[in-house]
C-alpha cells in the first residue's frame, strides 16, 4: 500500500507485497511477511528496523540475490524477476557483513574491475573515478592494496566500487557499521554530496539512527517482516512531538512563600512532576492543549519568580523508531 501522506510520484523502485520464508530442517523463518513501498528517482531513503526485521532480506530480494516466494519488484518499470539482466544494469550495492572488494587488489583496481563487470569502462570514466576518490577522501589510498587499509577506508572503497558502476539505484546496507566517528562522518558527508550532485536514488539501511536522520529525507521502518512506518523524517517526528515541557524557576528574593507556590502548582497542574532543590523549582509537565502553558506562566508570574529556562522535550528518530517498533511488537505479541 502506498503511503497516502507522501505525494504521488513516479516510483523508480517499486516493491509490491514481497514475501519470503526460509525453511530448513530445523526451523521455518518468515523473514518477510509482506513488504510494499515505492521510491522515487533521486530520493535518499533510510531503511530502519531491529535485528532480524527483514531489511537485508528485502534488499537482497530486490537485488536478485535471494529469490522471494512472491511479490513484484520493479526497477525503472522493469520487472526484476522477468528481466534480471536489465534490472541488474540499474542497481549496485554495498552489502553488510561482506568484504565487497578484493583485498589483494588496490582501490583503483577494485573500482576498475567492479565497474567493468557492470559494463562501465574505467578508461572512459577516469575523471569520474577520480571525483569519487576525492569525494570519499581516498585519493591518497588509490594505489594501496585494500588489505593494507583501515576498516574505514575499506568500507569507503566498497562504496566507491558500488558508485563507480554509475547505476541510478544504489543500496548501502549498514555502510557505517564498525566505522569510527570521523570515518562515519566523512562517509555521510560524501553521501550527501553525491546525492545532491548526482541525483541518484540511494537506499541506506542502518542501525544507526543518526546516519539515517543525517543523510535521508525519508525513512521506511520494517519490523517483523512488515513496513510499520513510511514517511518523511520530519513528518514522522512531528507525530511523536509531545507538549512535554521542563520549566526551571529560581527561588529568588521576591519569592516569599515557596510552599504556597508548590501548593498552587500541585492543585492547578496535578499532572506535573515538581521537584524542589535548595535554589530552584523544576516543573516537568505535559500539557493537553497548547494554551495551558500560559496558565502556568500566569501562576508563576503571580508569585514573581524568575524563570530560568523553558525547554520542550525533543523527539529524535531513535525515540520515534523505538516507539513504533514497541507498538508493533505490542500488536504482534
Amino acid at each position, binding site marked *: 500500500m502506498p503511503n497516502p501522506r507522501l505525494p504521488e510520484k513516479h516510483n523508480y523502485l517499486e516493491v509490491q507485497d514481497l514475501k*519470503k520464508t*526460509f525453511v*530448513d530442517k530445523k526451523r521455518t523463518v518468515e*523473514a518477510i511477511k509482506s513488504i510494499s513501498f515505492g521510491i522515487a528517482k533521486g530520493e535518499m531513503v533510510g531503511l530502519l528496523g531491529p535485528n532480524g526485521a527483514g531489511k537485508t*532480506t528485502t534488499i*537482497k530480494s530486490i*537485488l*536478485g*540475490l*535471494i*529469490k522471494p516466494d512472491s511479490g513484484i519488484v520493479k526497477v525503472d518499470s522493469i520487472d526484476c524477476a522477468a528481466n534480471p*539482466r*536489465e534490472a*541488474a*544494469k540499474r*542497481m*549496485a*550495492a554495498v*552489502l553488510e*557483513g*561482506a*568484504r*565487497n*572488494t*578484493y*583485498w*589483494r*587488489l588496490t582501490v583503483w*583496481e577494485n573500482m*576498475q*574491475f*567492479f*565497474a*567493468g*563487470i*557492470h*559494463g*562501465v*569502462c*574505467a578508461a572512459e570514466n577516469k575523471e569520474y573515478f577520480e571525483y569519487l576518490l576525492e569525494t570519499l577522501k581516498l585519493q591518497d589510498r588509490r594505489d594501496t592494496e585494500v588489505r593494507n587499509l583501515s576498516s574505514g577506508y575499506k568500507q569507503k572503497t566498497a562504496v566507491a*566500487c558500488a558508485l563507480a558502476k554509475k547505476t541510478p539505484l544504489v543500496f548501502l546496507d549498514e555502510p557505517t557499521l564498525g566505522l569510527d566517528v570521523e570515518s562515519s562522518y566523512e562517509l555521510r558527508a560524501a553521501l550527501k554530496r553525491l546525492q545532491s550532485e548526482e541525483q541518484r536514488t540511494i537506499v541506506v539501511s542502518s542501525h544507526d539512527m543518526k546516519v539515517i536522520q543525517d543523510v535521508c529525507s525519508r525513512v521506511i521502518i520494517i519490523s517483523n517482516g512488515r513496513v510499520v512506518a513510511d514517511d518523511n523524517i520530519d513528518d514522522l517526528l512531528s507525530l511523536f512531538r509531545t507538549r512535554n515541557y521542563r520549566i526551571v524557576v529560581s527561588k529568588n528574593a521576591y519569592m516569599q512563600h515557596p510552599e504556597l507556590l508548590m501548593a498552587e502548582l500541585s492543585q492547578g497542574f496535578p499532572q506535573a512532576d515538581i521537584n524542589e532543590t535548595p535554589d530552584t523549582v523544576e516543573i516537568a509537565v505535559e500539557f493537553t492543549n497548547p494554551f495551558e502553558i500560559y496558565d502556568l506562566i500566569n501562576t508563576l508570574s503571580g508569585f514573581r519568580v524568575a524563570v530560568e529556562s523553558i525547554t520542550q522535550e525533543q523527539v529524535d528518530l531513535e525515540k520515534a523508531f523505538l516507539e513504533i517498533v514497541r507498538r508493533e511488537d505490542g500488536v504482534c505479541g
Partner: protein
Amino acid sequence: MWLIALKASWRQTLTLQIRYLFNFFTSIITMSIVFLLIFHGVKAVGAGALDLGGTLEGLFTGYIIWMIVLTGYQDLAYNAANEAQTGTLEQLYLSPVGYKWLAFFSGSFNALMSLAMISVITAVMVLTTGQKLHLDIFSILPVFFGVYIQAYGLGFILGGLALIFKRIQSFFQVVTFGVIGLFMIPWSKYPWAKYLPFTMGQHLLQEIMMEGMKFTQAPKGDLAVFAVATIAYFLAGLGVFSMAETKAKAMGLLGQY
C-alpha cells in the same frame, strides 16, 4: 558491455596472478616433484603395477591430463568457494553479465595460464626422464581445450555444491585423486569407460604424444566420443550449477559462509 566485462575480468585475473606469482611457481615445482616421485616409484616397482594407459609411458599423458583436469576444475570450484568465503561472490552476482559468464571469462584466461604451467612441467618431465614425446602443438591443443572444458563441467558441479554446502574443499581433494581412478579403468575389460569424463582425452593425448598421431588422423568414432563428452559434461556441469544456484538463492545462501 560484454567486451568491457571480459577485459575487466582478464585484467583482474592477470593482476591477481601477478600478486600470487609465488604460488604459480611453487605449483610448477610441486607438480614436477610429484611427477618425478611417481615416475621413479613406478619404475622401481615395475610398470605393470600401475596401469596408466597400459604402459609406463602412459604415466606421462595420464599425468598431463590429470594436471589439465586439476587446474580446470579447481579454477572454478575453488574460486566459487573462496569468493563465497571472502564475501565477493554476491558482488559478482550483481553484475548484469552474470556469474557464469564471469566464471567463463576468468576461466578462459586461467586456461592459458594453465597451458603455460603444464608446458613448463612437461618440459621438466621430458628433460628429467629422457622420455621422447611428440609435441605437435596443433594436435595437442584441441585435446587440451576439450579436456579443460570437461574439467570446467566438473568444476561447475563442485562449484554449485560449494554454493550450498560451503566448506567442501576436503571433498574437492577426494575428487582430485578420484579422477586418477578414471584413467586406470582398462577399456579392454570395460568398453563403456571411454565415455567417462577425460578418458577419451587421455587416450587421444597418448596416441598423439607417444605414437605421433595427428589429431585429424584419430578414428572418427573416437573424435565423436571426445566431442560429445566435452559438450555433454560441460552442459551437465552448467545444469547442476544452475540448479544449485537456484537453490542457493531460494535458501539465501549466496552470501552466507
